């Protein structure tokens, strides 16, 4: 399947989704007024990928900011990953947060408690 490679903008994150390696990355900031439009192709890609996933899918989420409009879409991404895991594939989620950014750590914990995949919380020290 085609991979997705999007460059970040001041309002949207850098995205890389590669079906051949099973690596999914979302990095930067996600603050568009309307996030549904931005995330729809990503969720659709995961839907397609979930039909024939790699044995191991590695997900790296490293967000500097995200707005509440994005938060629901990000949950949709996680729900797709949860389904892949449920179908007996391995899924690793790495949640990166900046040193001392308690709000971002807590946001990761919120997601972790909603979907049933343990997160690896990784503090990034400058």
């Amino acid at each position, binding site marked *: 399947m085609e991979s997705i490679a999007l460059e970040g903008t001041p309002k949207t994150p850098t995205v890389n989704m590669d079906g051949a390696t099973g690596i999914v990355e979302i990095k930067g900031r996600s603050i568009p007024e309307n996030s549904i439009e931005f995330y729809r192709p990503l969720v659709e890609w995961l839907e397609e990928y979930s039909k024939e996933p790699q044995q191991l899918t590695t997900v790296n989420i490293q967000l500097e900011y995200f707005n509440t409009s994005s*938060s629901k879409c990000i949950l949709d991404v996680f729900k797709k990953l949860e389904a892949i895991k449920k179908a007996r594939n391995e899924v690793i989620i790495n949640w990166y947060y900046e040193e*001392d950014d308690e709000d971002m750590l807590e946001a990761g914990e919120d997601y972790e408690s909603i979907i049933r995949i343990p997160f690896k919380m990784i503090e990034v020290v400058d």
Partner: protein
Amino acid sequence: MSFNIDERYSKMNQGEVLLAYKGSITAELITNVLGVVESKLDHVIDKSITKKKIYNILVESLQNLYHHVDDLPYMVNESMDIHFGIFVISKMDESYVIRTGNFIKNEKIKKLTERLDKIKSLTRDELKELYKFVLNNQKFSDKGGGGLGLIDIARRTGGGVDYEFDNYDNDYSFFSFKITIDN
């Protein structure tokens, strides 16, 4: 008429003002303002976490404003810009204060008041639970996050939100919203 928009605006311009705006609230404007404020914050605040917190809350409050401005009918006030709103970002003592203002239909006041009073009354843990509940259960529209914005702001500020309604006429009031971010 008892409510005067210019008076309200100058009342909102308290403290050391970093940025004040009165006029049309458009997506483009918000993008520009976020860019300007971000570089301004870089100059006035050293602590990256404080900067991030303010920026996050600013994004949420301006996007909330953008989504919820009610337009006064042209007949009522022909000199007012469409999607009229106000926002002021200032520093007061050791806190940063974000104020927004917009017209709202009177029929929406009751619901908004109830929601705000509820959010203000919740503890930190209760806000977290409410946030997760709304995130996981509520349908989101293209417009917004089912009230998630207000919950998010209250969470990040430890309930540091306040509001006021000024009656404008039979159909409209002016909604003033104040967010205090302790440094």
